[in-house]
């Protein structure tokens, strides 16, 4: 029996990384929000590796944070190791990576949800989304409770018709022995959405008491304390190491001998898996001449003996998994606590979405996270916060909020998804960004915090910090132009030591800072005119001055890019009726309904000539309208 159980502005289905960010965003923006999940203990679970960040992903976390999201803070507060990657590869690609304590991460996020004003969380399985007069009106749960709402954000991850595969055993299930969500998948299909089927997998978890670390290389966290959040309270952190070992020829032989038992090669798996996250059997087959593959053994947390074996993702049968693991130095006596498995799931083809992550066909219905064909906690969270923001803005009858490819990795991610789609679980990479030098993790606040503040998501505390930091940066950049470093033996001795050429006359500090081998901290030794500034200010001054020329070049490219982004296309344009478009362009444009000329130009099959035709058509329309009004 169905019964009315409540009224909300925004209902979020699922409490993973996407769902939690979505719910927090909409609640913080003042909308009455409800999270429905099939297991409250599983909020922001990490069913794959216990890590947050890395290239492009740490950029996302910083952006989520700059907008007023939770992932950065939650990681800072629960991390058990942090390292800055890529420090020698340039400012654009510095990337923070954290080992998270899985249990702590979940508990803290759940508590954050519980403490959030305007937000209810309930353990209920959603079976149906109600649509009235073409738009979302509510959700129905498995016990008959019906909630009315104006917007629904579906963030069901890999649960839709999830199927777990371990060797030749397979059964319906969500990740980590959860229930799958079966009826909702059919419901989405009935609502007219096109679904695809993807696959991903995870390695075994082993008992740390059966691991011989003496045969592995230790990997410590950085001594310097790093944080994701621009307003992190964490000043010191207890850290634990990870361990590095390698597969052996024996491992590869075991895999080759048992390939016939792999569900992948036996054809049990139909879904498309990600290339960046291949199973070990895949790696051994595809890169047959590689003598060894590296294996990281990572702690899953401080209050568990379970360890994650990165590099050994597999869906081979458990007996083979054990043999395989035991052929790796340090794991000779290892015991498996949870076997590795593959999971197949239904996914919404993301080209059916607008850049706001609202479905094009059902107003009020949003999808975010792994359901949209992505992979990764960070990619999910990034979509979650954007869907949450836009659902809230729709409720408040305000303009939607989107980010362009030139503004944020979030923009790159969502534009790739909704414009190009994806034929494998999508992972963000810095190589996907056109304006990488502008989208650094260090300046995410400069790019996004004002925007987050304007839509009512950024707190006063965060906003204040941001204003002060960037004011200090601006002032210091100006001041550097006026400070002169005197020539002389004292200065030249320092320069010589750094392998920098000596100066013969007094030189503006800013000119010295442009030299690759000299950084801001060097200047402190060359002049008394410096008072210590915070590291984040120094880092920014260094980057902005040293890479000024390259940054300016990218800014000029962005200017051209934005001109086309700024030419908006209405949703109701009948492309079939536009003379001069190629047949393919008409079909694609009709299907995608791009929101701007810029987006149209990125759809495959739409040529520059088609774009010219569209521009002329837009001008024709404008004049016809102007003529009609006279």
């Amino acid at each position, binding site marked *: 029996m169905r019964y009315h159980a409540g009224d909300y502005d925004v209902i979020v289905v699922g409490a993973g990384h996407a769902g939690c960010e979505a719910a927090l965003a909409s609640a913080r923006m003042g909308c009455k929000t409800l999270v429905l999940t099939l297991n409250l203990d599983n909020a922001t679970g990490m069913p*794959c*590796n216990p890590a947050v960040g*890395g*290239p*492009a992903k740490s950029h996302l976390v910083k952006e989520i944070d700059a907008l007023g999201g939770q992932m950065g803070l939650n990681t800072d507060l629960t991390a058990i190791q942090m390292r800055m*990657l*890529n420090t*020698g*590869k*340039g*400012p*654009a*690609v510095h*990337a923070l*990576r954290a080992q998270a304590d899985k249990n702590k991460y979940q508990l803290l996020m759940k508590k954050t949800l519980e403490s959030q004003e305007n937000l209810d969380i309930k353990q209920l399985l959603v079976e149906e989304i109600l649509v009235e007069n073409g738009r979302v009106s509510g959700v129905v749960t498995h016990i008959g409770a019906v909630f009315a709402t104006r917007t629904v954000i579906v963030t069901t991850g890999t649960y839709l018709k999830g199927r777990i595969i371990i060797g030749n055993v397979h059964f319906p299930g969500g990740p980590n022995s959860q229930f799958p969500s079966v009826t909702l998948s059919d419901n989405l299909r009935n609502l007219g959405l096109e679904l695809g089927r993807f696959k991903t997998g995870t390695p075994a978890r082993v008992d740390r008491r059966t691991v011989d670390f003496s045969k592995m290389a230790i990997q410590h966290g950085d001594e310097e304390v790093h944080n994701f959040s621009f307003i992190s309270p964490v000043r010191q952190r207890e850290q634990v190491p990870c361990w590095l070992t390698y597969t052996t020829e024996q491992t590869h032989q075991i895999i080759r001998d048992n390939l016939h038992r792999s569900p992948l090669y036996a054809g049990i798996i139909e879904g498309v898996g990600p*290339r*960046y*996250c*291949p199973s070990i059997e*895949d*790696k051994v087959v*595809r*890169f047959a001449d*590689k003598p060894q*593959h*590296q294996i*990281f053994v990572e702690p899953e947390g401080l209050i568990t003996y379970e360890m994650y074996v*990165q*590099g050994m*993702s597999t869906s081979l049968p458990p007996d083979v998994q054990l043999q395989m693991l035991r052929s790796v130095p340090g794991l000779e006596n290892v015991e498996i606590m949870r076997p590795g498995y593959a999971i197949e799931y239904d996914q919404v083809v993301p080209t059916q979405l607008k850049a706001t992550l609202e479905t094009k066909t059902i107003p009020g219905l949003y999808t975010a996270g792994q359901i949209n064909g992505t992979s990764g906690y960070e990619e999910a969270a990034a979509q979650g916060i954007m869907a949450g923001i836009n659902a809230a803005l729709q409720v408040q009858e305000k303009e939607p909020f989107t980010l362009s490819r030139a503004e944020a990795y979030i923009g790159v991610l969502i534009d790739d998804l909704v414009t*190009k789609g994806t034929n494998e679980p999508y992972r963000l*990479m*810095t*190589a*996907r960004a056109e304006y*990488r*030098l502008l989208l650094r993790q260090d300046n995410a606040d400069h790019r996004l915090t004002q925007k987050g503040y304007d839509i009512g998501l950024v707190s006063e505390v965060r906003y204040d910090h941001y204003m002060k930091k960037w004011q200090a940066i601006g002032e210091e950049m100006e001041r550097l132009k006026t400070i002169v470093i005197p020539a002389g033996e004292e200065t030249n001795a320092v320069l010589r030591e750094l392998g920098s050429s000596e100066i013969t006359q007094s030189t503006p500090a800013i000119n010295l800072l442009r030299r*690759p*081998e000299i950084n801001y901290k060097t200047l402190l030794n060359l002049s008394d005119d410096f008072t210590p500034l915070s590291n984040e200010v120094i880092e920014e001054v260094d980057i902005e001055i040293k*890479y000024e020329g*390259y940054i300016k*070049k*990218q800014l000029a490219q962005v*200017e*051209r890019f934005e001109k086309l982004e700024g030419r908006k296309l209405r949703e109701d344009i009948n492309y079939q009726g536009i*003379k*001069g478009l190629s047949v393919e362009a008409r079909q694609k444009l009709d299907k995608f309904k791009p929101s701007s000329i810029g987006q149209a130009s990125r759809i495959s099959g739409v*040529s*520059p*000539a088609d774009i*010219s*035709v569209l*521009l*002329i*058509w837009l*001008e*024709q329309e404008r*004049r*016809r309208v102007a003529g009609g009004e006279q």
Partner: protein
Amino acid sequence: MEDTIVAIATPLGEGSIGIIRISGPAAIDVGRLVFQPKVNQDWYIKDNYKLVYGHVVDPASREIIDEVLLSVMRGPRSFTAEDVVEISCHGGIVPLRRVLEVVLRQGTRLAEPGEFSKRAFLNGRLDLAQAESIIDIIRAKTDAGAKIAMAQLGGKLSDKVSALQHELLGLLAQIEAIIDFPEDDIPEETLEEMAGRCNGLLKVIEQLLDNADTGKIYREGLRTVIVGKPNVGKSSLLNALLREQRAIVTDIPGTTRDVIEEVLNIKGVPLKIIDTAGLRETQDLVEKLGVERSKQLLNQADLILLVLDAFTGLSEEDLRVIDLIKEKKVLVLINKIDIARNAIDQAELKKLIGFSDILEISAQKEIGLDRLEQSILALVLEGKITAAENVFVSNSRHKLALERAKKHLQEAGWGIHQSIPPDIVSIDIKSSWEILGEITGNSVTEDLIDRIFADFCIGK
């Protein structure tokens, strides 16, 4: 800010004047860079709609390119409603092409088909009724242009550029894989190795620029051989063509004593007539040089003019020559049609010679020479006369693209040398790859991602 665009505004190969049109915010500045007025030093300040006499000078080499007339039309009072500069040059393909390239090097870009009209319309200079015809132009020219550019490319140049692009992508994938997957054990290249790869690629680009097939025709002329049996009228034909054209004719001593080359200009296409000596001695080519040497000579030819006798018909000698040149680009000329018409069965001839064009002429009476010239131009420009502009333009486009790709690669090499970090060096390498993609029509980010996963074993 809009790009500043440039194109040749007059039909190619016709007329004694050719106009290069530049439109956009930088048009006048570009004019100042390439144009040296005889008087009117302050033309760019005050002269509007006035012709200014002077020279186009390459700002890099200070070389005088052409004697020209220049006019300025300031926006909004111009066709596009932007600042427009028009340079009237001598009409041949060579000067036009060189002026165009000099202008392109000053940071302008080649206009897309119909782009001047498109800008005129978008800036309110043309009325609604004209919009449709602009769309027609964009459509028609783009489709034809793409086909011709591909046909032109088909073969060596395209293969070479594709190979180059493949290499560049490999270099880029290497850098990007290490950036995006720092924890995977991807073999890292040393700076020296990377610099070495950059240098290797630079050399290939330089070679391409030196040997660009297309450039060669305009720089050195189309290597042309006139063949036919004695007394068929080869020398009359040459003399007639020499009389027809108004350009300079020079004698260039050949590399061997018996080969003398003569350069003549057919509708702007320089034709280098080879072995005119043998031709004047009214000897049979094959008889004189022997089969091997004749084959060699004919193989070097870009174009062969086969002259047959309308009066005597096909002889043994003719058949021998036809056999040698079946695979080549041949224009068949049936000469002496003022005397006789029916001695040669054209249908049968077609069977023998394949798909070559057959023209009837009289070298003596100068009949049919105009059609001959048209046919030569058409052949050079790969197909139809109407397509001339596209092919011509695609030549310049390719050459400039190679030059730009080279510049970015040089900067990348410099950056590696200066220890500029890889995330920044990769910007130039990527630009270089994308620019080559303008030639091959192929450079999407997905290719890079595919390459990373194809080349490296990545994954947790």
